[in-house]
C-alpha cells in the first residue's frame, strides 16, 4: 500500500518538474528556411523613441494635499484683571481673536476698553477709551499632527487707541509764595498709534479650549495729547507718559471651527528639497 503511494507521489513530482522545465526552455523553432531574404517593400512599423525604463515604471505624478480645520479662536485676557490689583485706578477689558490664514500664518486682532479713575489730595483724574490691534502671528511649532492647533508664535501688531480724559480738579501748592492754585483740565480727546512685537504660546487644554500667554513690547509711534497734560493711561498701550511699554497677557480662549484649509504638501516638500540643494551647493 505504502509502496503504491510512494510510487504515485514520485510520478506526480516528476511530472511537475518536467512541466517546470518546459516552461523555462523556449520552444525550439520550427524547421524551416532561416536565410535572410530581401523584401520588396518596407513592412516595418515606424519606430517610436524608446523611453528610459525608469521613467516608464514611474506612476503618474499626483500632488498630495492635506485638509485641516480653520476657525476663529476667541479669548478673554484675564491678566487685565490682575493689573487692576496692582494699579487700582485702571479697569481694562481685552478680547483677543485669531484666524488661521495659511500653514503658519494667523491673522490676529484684539479689542479692548479702558476706564481710568484716580483721586488724591493733589488731583482727580477721569478717563476712558477703546483700542484695537491688528496683525499677524507666525507659528513656528513643528507639528506632528497637521490638525494640531497648539502654537508657539511670534507676532507683530499695529495698535490704535482713542481716549478721552479730564482732570475735574487739581491743586498746585507753592511754599515760597504760600499760595494754593486750584484748577481743572477740560475733557480732552486723543488718539495714539503704536507697534507691538509679541511672543507667546497657545495650548489646547481641553478640546477647542485654549490657554495661552504672551509677552509684548509696545513701541509708541505717535500720540496727539496736549504737551502739558499726558493721559495717565493710553488704552491698550499702558502708561501715557512712556514711549515703550512691556506687557504680559494670559488668555483663555475658545476655538470655533468654521472652514477647511487645503495645503499642497508635495509643493512644500519640493521647495524644501530645492532649499536643501541650494544650501549644499553653497557649502
Amino acid at each position, binding site marked *: 500500500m505504502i509502496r503504491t503511494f510512494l510510487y504515485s507521489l514520485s510520478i506526480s513530482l516528476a511530472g511537475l518538474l518536467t512541466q517546470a522545465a518546459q516552461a523555462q526552455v523556449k520552444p525550439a523553432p520550427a524547421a524551416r528556411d532561416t536565410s535572410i531574404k530581401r523584401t520588396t517593400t518596407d513592412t516595418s512599423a515606424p519606430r517610436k523613441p524608446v523611453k528610459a525604463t525608469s521613467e516608464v515604471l514611474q506612476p503618474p505624478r499626483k500632488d498630495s494635499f492635506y485638509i485641516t480645520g480653520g476657525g476663529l479662536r476667541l479669548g478673554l485676557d484675564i491678566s487685565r484683571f*490682575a*493689573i487692576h490689583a*496692582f*494699579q*487700582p*485706578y485702571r479697569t481694562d477689558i481685552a478680547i483677543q481673536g485669531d484666524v488661521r490664514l495659511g500653514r503658519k500664518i494667523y491673522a490676529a486682532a484684539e479689542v479692548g476698553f479702558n476706564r481710568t479713575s*484716580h483721586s*488724591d489730595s*493733589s*488731583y482727580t*483724574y477721569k478717563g476712558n477709551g477703546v483700542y484695537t490691534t491688528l496683525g499677524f502671528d507666525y507659528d513656528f511649532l513643528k507639528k506632528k499632527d497637521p490638525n494640531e492647533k497648539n502654537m508657539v508664535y511670534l507676532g507683530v501688531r499695529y495698535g490704535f487707541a482713542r481716549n478721552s480724559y479730564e*482732570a475735574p480738579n*487739581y*491743586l*498746585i501748592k*507753592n*511754599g*515760597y*509764595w*504760600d*499760595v494754593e*492754585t486750584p*484748577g481743572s*483740565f477740560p475733557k480732552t480727546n486723543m488718539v495714539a498709534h503704536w507697534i507691538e512685537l509679541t511672543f507667546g504660546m497657545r495650548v489646547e487644554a481641553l478640546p477647542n479650549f485654549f490657554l495661552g500667554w504672551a*509677552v509684548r513690547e509696545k513701541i509708541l509711534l505717535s500720540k496727539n495729547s496736549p*504737551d*502739558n*497734560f*499726558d493721559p*495717565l493711561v493710553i488704552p491698550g498701550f*499702558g*502708561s501715557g*507718559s512712556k514711549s515703550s*511699554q*512691556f*506687557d*504680559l497677557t494670559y488668555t483663555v480662549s475658545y476655538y470655533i471651527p468654521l472652514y477647511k484649509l487645503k495645503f499642497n504638501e508635495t509643493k512644500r516638500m519640493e521647495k524644501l528639497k530645492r532649499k536643501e540643494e541650494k544650501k549644499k551647493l553653497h557649502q
Partner: protein
Amino acid sequence: MKYISGIIAILLLSVFAACEDETKTCDSTLLSDLGMNFKKDTLQGFLVKDTIWPKVTLYAIGNDSVLIRRQPRSSAFMPLDPLHDTCRFYLQLDSIATPDTLTFRYKRVPSFVSPGCGFATFFSLDTVITTYNTIDSIHINNREVNSSNDTHISLFFIY
C-alpha cells in the same frame, strides 16, 4: 537651558515694573524754579568763568520770606509768582555791593508732571529786565521754566 531661569527672572521683573502703581511715587521734581548762575567776564568775553559771590541775598519784592540771606553762592533758584504774570526779585551779591532788581515777565502754564506728582505751574519766560549796578549783562539760556532744573539765565560781572 541654563539661561531659561535668568530669562524668566528678567521677564517677571519687567512685568512687575510694567504693573507698578505710578500714582504712588513722584519720580520727578515739582520745583519749577528759575535757575540762575553767576559768571565772571574777563578779557572782554574771551575768558568767562563761574564765580562765587560771598554774601548773596535774594528775595522776591512783595514777599516777606527771604530765599537766600548772606550766603556764598555761585547760583540760585527763584520760584516765580504762580498767581501773576510778572514778579521782581531783589539781589545783593555782596554786603558792600549795590543791590540789583530783576524783573521777570512770563506766561504761566499749568502742567501735568506725572501721575505721582500731579500738577505744577510751568512758566515760559518772555522778558527779563535788570538794573546794572553790579550786574554787567544778562543772558537767557532757556525760556522754558519747567521741572528740568536747568540754568535759565546767566548773570555776567566784570571786576
